[in-house]
């Protein structure tokens, strides 16, 4: 993987895999006239590699796309999922924002609190689009784990969506970081002046749609848009029907925030399958920078 550690370096022409502020990152070139740069922040337990579908869709519609793996996460950056922390993810998002200076950032699920914190206090008003963005850590963790680990002391090994995480350290980090209650999200939202959009499933069992609406209602620091989707599960990465619902809404919102009049086109699934195969084959043949 090529090294790209200097945040002042011009990243405009990069494609493929590169090191970026110490993290494994991927750069996808825009197809056609470039509308802007979109930074994708993966959900918990999903690597940047597996954010191929939204990245391919955005790139096909004129966005240059940057995605990366945070530390202590699945993917190609350093560290182990066992040591996953929301605080270090927020630090990584902030560092990548500084290096890339994107036109917009798209955060999925548990990335949302990290993205909010990374944007808080910034003056560049980067628009953020949250897909199934978590707005209440306690509620989401309880829904996923069926236990409120902010009340019940977790063990050293908690299986979170099949990933072994040091439960106590993670919970302690959420507390010290300030990402526990809905009020914490409200507090972060109050420190962001740029526009925020939440693409939210109306029946999402892990993120309360009512709380997303409430967040939009109480936030006055900047514009907040809520785009409801008739989706009743949170596992978008395993199901293309759900992935496409979110991707369509995210694409439309990305186009809107960069001022494009285009409606956007979702590439056929078999085009995406073919493109990923080609990428895998070319990487296997060593044609892509590693």
């Amino acid at each position, binding site marked *: 993987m090529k090294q790209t550690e200097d945040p002042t370096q011009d990243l405009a022409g990069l494609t493929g895999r590169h090191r970026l502020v110490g993290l494994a990152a991927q750069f996808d070139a825009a197809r056609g006239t470039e509308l802007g740069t979109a930074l994708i922040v993966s959900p918990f*337990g999903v690597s940047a590699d597996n954010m191929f579908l939204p990245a391919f869709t955005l790139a096909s519609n004129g966005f240059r796309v940057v995605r990366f793996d945070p530390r202590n996460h699945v993917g190609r950056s350093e560290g182990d999922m066992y040591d996953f922390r929301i605080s270090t993810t927020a630090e990584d998002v902030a560092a990548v924002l500084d290096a890339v200076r994107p036109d917009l950032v798209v955060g999925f699920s548990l990335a949302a609190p990290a993205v909010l914190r990374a944007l808080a206090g910034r003056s560049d008003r980067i628009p953020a689009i949250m897909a199934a963005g978590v707005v209440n850590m306690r509620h989401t963790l309880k829904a996923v784990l069926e236990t409120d680990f902010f009340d019940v002391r977790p063990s050293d090994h908690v299986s979170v969506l099949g990933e072994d995480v040091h439960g106590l350290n993670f919970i302690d980090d959420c507390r010290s970081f300030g990402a526990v209650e809905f009020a914490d999200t409200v507090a972060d939202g109050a420190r962001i002046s740029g526009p925020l959009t939440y693409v939210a499933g109306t029946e999402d069992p892990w993120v309360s749609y009512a709380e997303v609406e409430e967040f939009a209602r109480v936030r006055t620091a900047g514009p907040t848009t809520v785009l409801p989707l008739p989706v009743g599960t949170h596992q978008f990465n395993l*199901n293309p029907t759900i992935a*496409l619902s979110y991707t369509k809404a995210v694409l439309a919102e990305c186009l809107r925030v960069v001022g494009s009049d285009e409606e956007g086109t979702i590439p056929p699934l078999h085009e995406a399958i073919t493109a990923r195969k080609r990428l895998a084959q070319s990487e296997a043949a060593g044609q892509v920078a590693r």
Partner: protein
Amino acid sequence: MAAMADTELSPALRADVGELDVLLASSNISTMTAAQADEVRLRHIRAAVAWHIERNEGYRRFCAGRGFSADQLRRTEDLGRVPLLPAALFKRGAAVVASVPADTAVLDTTSSGTQGTVSVVPRDDLTLNRFFATLGIGTYEVLDQQRSELKVFNLGPLEAGHLWIAYVMSGVALFTDGQCYVEDDAFLLEALVRDLAAADGTPVLVVGPPPLVLDAAAACRAAGVVLHPESLLLTIGGWKRASGRMLPRDEFVGAVLEGFGLPDDTSVRDTFNMVELNTVLFECAQHRLHLPPWLHAETKDPRTLEPLAHGQNGVLAFLDATPTSYPGFVLSDDFGTVERVSDCACGRSGDVLRLDRRINRLEGRGCALKLDQRTNR
């Protein structure tokens, strides 16, 4: 379900085709009660029948000739009246079965078959998306694989063309982390064993046709590679050209468990699909193929094609609500039974498919044949 007056349809039966995508984006789909599933199934199949009657001239004439319309589907029992396309019809080309698709991105997917008897199924993008949704739902709910980053070891080719089983296996790679281990018609067994050894400590999902899974198990045993106890082995397709090596299922499962060092037979699951079917069925932990609430299956008397009761062996017929670019109402080439199960230990209830055997034909059928021809040693 109670019968309704002939002139009235419950609002619950007035499903729009798009509502199916809402269902496919829901949670706990596979654990509906049998009664709930019956109602949901009827609504969506009724909507699908109406869609194809409107958008498929051949099917419209076929239905009209039988005096059938979608309005006649008022009770679950009525589903046996839906006119079926014989699987052999798909061998006459995509145009023979095609409906006006939901979108323009139509891919002609094919079975194998010899003697020029390839089945061709036109799949538009919506149909393909729904197919992979059934795969995702089955993986998440029935296999209980909830890892966001599922590590899949795919005993199929990355470059699949349009051959359905291979396409399915390569398409899985879009949604999962993993590798394909068939390349240029060769099974990359050494690479597979090396990579499985490297995955030590992580649950993995190994997917492939039974002969290749068996070869992999033997190679892992020889190399001393033991999989994480939460790993799953998923068989897709049959033995085909390797029928001389075919083992009874329990012997196969035993050999695979021993080879991979896995604890019990819940780690080895079978699947069912055929190129004309747009849904994948996954065995639950009790090794039952539960029908999801968008798919109806029943058996037909092989001589009269009249519907048979639950538990009676006959020719399997499927009504799949998910395809939009062809009618998913298919009389298969398979014998089997559909049983009503009220208390499966996996927590599910409702109809369960049991596949017995293929109708004897001169030509071979099934995508696994061609995949196997490429790789069977």
